């Protein structure tokens, strides 16, 4: 696959705050890329730099191999779907969609043809003369998508486009966006803080935090092989504990020594231990298990979320209900224990990810 957009060492500061810290990223043609991270991680700024609305302080941006740092937005073959749609309130649905073509002085006949194509694509046939002020959120969103796609951009930028929609509509739009992307055969760069959205739609997920890229990979990679505790915690729920790697395949945490499958750490190196809640098996307490008391049980539909208070607080997902106050044993198999290098971003054993939870390790 060809690289369509290359970001090389881009940094950006706003009012003395480092929003992007030397990020580099390649985006391939016809790829669905999601920039995922908590608010303030720099994902929207990255998108706005690609769109041309923000000039980076340093670093270069390439489009099809050409440096476009200084190209104004209206000269870039990139279009944006804005967070709150930003439709033109003085124009009706048809004129909103036709806006770009009218600017380029396209013949009326062709405008009509293209707009109708777009209306069909976003399923808004019959709404042409409607004022955009009287459309539902979902319909406004469709107009925004059609308006951005009419110029047949190589890349479509989407800034949390589904954020304002309710859950059911969001799910529908997710599928539809994916369909549109495959139908149009163009690159989508999608910004969201919703990890589930990212995993469902993307070919590639870029996890960002505090102006840096944490991990780039397929949804499966990101979920199954998170590179650090931040990614592990942000993508799905995790138990993250501080531990010490005694030697290869042997780690100490929560007061016990466990076998694991990771290696390549220095002897007695402090590490983060990540355990997915669904990987934990609750058993009767024995000498080999981490024993604790069930603090709360919440029914979540597919499973129960059980909070177990041992020397640490554990989140466990289990299909079997427990009663608060039960004494249980936490059993772990070596392959479910993920060892990660302590990352500098949250070294003190606690970190804040404003849209996920704040959790203390140790």
């Amino acid at each position: 696959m060809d690289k369509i957009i290359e970001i090389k060492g881009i940094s950006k500061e706003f009012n003395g705050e480092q929003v992007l810290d030397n990020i580099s990223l390649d985006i391939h043609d016809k790829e669905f890329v999601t920039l995922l991270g908590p608010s303030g991680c720099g994902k929207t700024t990255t998108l706005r730099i690609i769109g041309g609305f923000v000039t980076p302080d340093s670093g270069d941006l390439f489009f099809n191999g050409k440096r476009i740092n200084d190209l104004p937005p209206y000269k870039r073959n990139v279009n944006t779907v804005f967070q709150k749609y930003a439709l033109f309130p003085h124009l009706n649905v048809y004129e909103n969609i036709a806006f770009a073509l009218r600017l380029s002085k396209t013949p009326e006949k062709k405008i009509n043809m293209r707009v109708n194509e777009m209306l069909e694509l976003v399923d808004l046939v019959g709404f042409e003369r409607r004022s955009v002020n009287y459309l539902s959120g979902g319909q406004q969103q469709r107009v925004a998508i059609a308006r951005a796609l009419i110029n047949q951009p190589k890349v479509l930028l989407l800034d949390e486009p589904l954020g304002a929609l309710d859950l059911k509509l969001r799910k529908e739009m997710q599928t539809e966006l994916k369909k549109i992307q495959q139908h149009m055969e163009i690159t989508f760069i999608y910004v969201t803080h919703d990890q589930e959205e990212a995993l469902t739609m993307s070919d590639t997920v870029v996890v960002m935090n505090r102006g840096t890229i944490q991990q780039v990979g397929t949804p499966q990679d990101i979920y199954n092989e998170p590179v650090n505790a931040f990614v592990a915690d942000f993508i799905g729920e995790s138990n993250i504990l501080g531990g010490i790697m005694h030697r290869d395949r042997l780690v100490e945490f929560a007061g016990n020594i466990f076998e694991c499958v990771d290696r390549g750490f220095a002897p007695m190196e402090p590490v983060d231990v990540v355990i997915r809640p669904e990987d934990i098996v609750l058993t009767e307490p024995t000498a080999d298990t981490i024993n604790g008391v069930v603090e709360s049980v919440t029914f979540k539909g597919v499973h129960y979320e059980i909070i177990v208070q041992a020397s640490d607080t554990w989140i466990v997902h289990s299909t079997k209900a427990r009663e608060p106050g039960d004494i249980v044993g936490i059993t772990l198999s070596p392959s479910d224990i993920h060892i990660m290098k302590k990352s500098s971003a949250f070294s003190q054993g606690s970190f804040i990810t404003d849209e996920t939870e704040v959790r203390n390790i140790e």
Partner: protein
Amino acid sequence: MNRRSRYSAFPYLLWMSVFIIVPLILILVFAFTTTVKFDNTGNRLTNDQAAELIADWEASGKAGDFPVKEKFYFTFDNIIQVGNYSSTLINSVILASIATVICLFLGYPFAYMVSRMRVSRQKIMIMFIMLPMWMNFLLRTYAWMTLLEKNGWINRFLELFGIGPFEMINTQGAVVLGMIYNFLPYMILPLYSVMTKIDDHTIEAAYDLGANRVKALTKVILPLSMPGIASGITMVFVPAVSTFIISKLLGGGTNMLIGDLIELQFLGNTYNPHLGSAISLVLLVFVLLCISVTNQLDSDKTEGVLL
């Protein structure tokens, strides 16, 4: 609407009927009537004759009945007479239009600039715009007199460079300047309040879809600020066209405006409330026409500031 809110409008309705509706009816009545004076035997008198009779009557120690009787007659004469002053009306409209257009061109870019600033800065800028409005209108206009006079500050300053002196006061230019100075805030404020409602992203969307700065202005910003333009024009044009103090002080009586003419009918030597009312009525109709035209600017259902 519940009972309470229905009655809560009552104080204003009372105010409106006493101080707006009734005076309007009076203007209407005066505009279409004329007072004719008679002596006690039924002979028609001119104003001078009537004054003479009254003087005689007073000199005679007010013996007998008051010698003059007045009767009101319905007439179109006043309205027709207004035609004699059409040049004054046209002059007023021209000067007020020039002032309004200049206010729009000065105010529009400024209002846009302010609306894109940080909110804290916006407040400061708006305060600067309002600042002159807190000072007395007469005082401000007198200040311009001393600036524009033949030996005024501007001429004295220019003299330092060997330029001038210029005839500035008592010209139409001075009147227009006075209008602009006094009414500019009324242009900026409605423009500003409409422009702050234009989302930055909407303008970015225009750039994104291929609009350069000029196209973004003409295709998005201008249409979205139409309601502000309409109310700004109304708020500047209406007071400017009917002003009398500005033309009196800065125009020096030689550039009479329609407002001066009305004032003259009520407070001047040519006391004639019937003609004064007729001119006011013509002006009122004219202003209503202007407003209905500017309201066409934002006829579509974008939210406007109704002022």
